[in-house]
C-alpha cells in the first residue's frame, strides 16, 4: 500500500546541539567522544553519559550495520523503515533507512549515512544501503 512519501518534520535544535545540525547541513555526522573515559556516544551530549565529563563532538565516518528494523505498512507516509544502525565507531543511531525496496532490507546489512531534507529545517542523518 503506497501513499504520499513521508514528510520529515524539522528537528528543533537547542543551544546544546545546534552544532550537530550545523554540521549536518555540511554533510557531517557528529557523535560524542569523551576524553576522560574514552567512550563514544550517540546522540551527542555536552557531557558524557558514562562519566559526565565534558565531551568532544567528533565526525563519524557515517558507516555501520543495521542492528534491527521495522517497516511501517500503514498510515501516513507508509511504507517507511525505522531502524537502529550500529556505527563502526560503536554507538547505535535511531534512524530511517532511505530506500525504494524496504522488503530487501535485513539485519546486519551495511549502510552509509545519507542526509535527508526536512520540512523547513536542517537535514537529518538517515542511512542507505551501501
Amino acid at each position: 500500500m503506497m501513499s504520499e512519501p513521508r514528510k520529515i518534520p524539522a528537528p528543533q535544535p537547542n543551544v546544546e546541539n545546534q552544532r550537530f545540525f550545523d554540521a549536518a547541513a555540511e554533510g557531517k555526522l557528529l557523535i560524542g567522544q569523551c576524553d576522560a573515559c574514552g567512550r563514544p556516544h550517540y546522540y551527542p551530549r555536552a557531557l558524557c553519559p558514562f562519566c559526565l565529563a565534558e565531551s568532544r563532538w567528533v565526525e563519524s565516518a557515517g558507516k555501520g550495520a543495521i542492528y534491527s528494523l521495522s517497516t511501517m505498512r500503514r498510515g501516513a507516509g507508509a511504507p517507511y523503515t525505522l531502524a537502529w544502525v550500529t556505527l563502526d565507531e560503536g554507538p547505535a543511531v535511531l534512524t530511517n533507512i532511505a530506500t525504494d525496496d524496504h522488503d530487501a532490507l535485513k539485519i546486519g546489512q551495511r549502510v552509509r549515512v545519507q542526509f535527508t531534507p526536512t520540512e523547513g529545517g536542517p537535514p537529518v542523518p538517515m542511512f542507505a544501503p551501501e
Partner: protein
Amino acid sequence: MSIRNKAYISGAYEHPTRLAPDKSTPQLHAECAAGALADAGLSLKDVDGYFCAGDAPGFGGMSMVDYLGLNVRHVDSTETGGSSYILHVSHAAQAIAAGKCSIALITLAGRPRSEPFGRQLGNAPEAPFEGWVGQSTHNSYGMCAARHMHEYGTTSEQLAWIKVAASHHAQYNPHAMLRDIVKVDDVINSPMISDPLHRLDCCVVSDGGGALLVVSPDVAKSLKRPLVAVRGAGEHVKGPRGGMNLDLTTSAAAISGPAAFAEAGVTPADIQYASIYDSFTITVLIQLEDLGFCEKGDGGRFVADGNLISGTGKLPFNTDGGGLCNNHPTNRGGITKVIEAVRQLRGEAHPAVQVPDCALAVATGIGGALGARHGAATLILERQ
C-alpha cells in the same frame, strides 16, 4: 527496609466503558476513584495519599487532588508510561511502610479512542535527534520482535499464540472489546502493521480507566475484602545509554522482575497466575523471559500450544483478555494488570478462567518505547 506485607490492595476498579465521548478525562478519573472506594468500603475522606501519572490532566497531581476533593499528606506522580500504576503500588507500599500515608488512591483514565493522540517527544533531550524518525509504538516494538526473531529464531506463529490465549480468556469478559476466539492463522493472516507485527499482535485502543486503593495492614484487616498483600516489588528504567548499551531483546523487566521475586522470597515456579502487560505480543514474550519463567530466547517455545491459557496451560495469563482483547485504557495497561491479579487472588475472576485457590500472582508491565527508552515495574501479590 522491605515492603513485604507492609501494605495491601483493598480496592480495585476497572471502568466498564471502552468508548466515552460524553465524559471528560478528569470525570473518568473520578468515576474510577469512586468505584475503587466502593469496592473497598472506604470513603473519599479516608484517602490520605494520591498517585497519578502522565495521563492525569493538569500539574503532577495538584490539579487532580483538588478536582477529586482529596486532602492528602502524600502525593507521587512518577511517570513510567503504562507501567506507572504497577510502580505506584510499590511506591504506595513504601510510603505506607514509612508512615507517610495509610490509604493511597491510584487513578488512571483517558480517552484515546474518542480523541486520538500521537506519540510526542516534547522537550525530551532525544527529541531533536529522534523526533523525525516516525517512531510509533508499533515500529518501536516491531524492532524488538525483529531482533528477537533474528537472534533466537522466534516465529510469528509463536507470537500469535499469545493473542490466541488472550482471546480464549476474553470470550468470558462481557466488557472486552474483542470477544471472538482467534486461531494462530487469524493472527498471522491479519494485515501487517509494522514488520513483523500484524494487526492482531497489537492491543486494542480504548477509552476508560481504573483505580486502586493500597492500604496499611490495620486498615486492610478492618475492611470486609479479602487480604491481598504486596509481597515484593521491583522497578527499572532502561534506554540505549548513548547508543552503547542497545539490547532490544532484554527489557527493564530483567531488573524489576528478579528484584520483586527476591523481595517476595519466591520464584517464578511458585506463581499461579501472571498479569503480563501486553501492548503487543512481543511485550509479553520478552517479559516472560526477563522474569525467569523461561530462559532468554525460549519465550517462543514457552508461549506456544496454549501454554498461557487458563485451565489447560502451565501459566495462566491475562485472564480478563488483557490489552490484546479486553482493554488498554488511555494506551496504558499497567493498572488493568494489577486489577485482574487482584480479582484472581480474591477468587473473583470469571469462573471459566479463575485459577483454583489462587494465592500467589505476579503483575508486571513495560511502559514507554521498548525499542528505545522504557520503564518496567513488577509486583508479587499474595492472598492471605
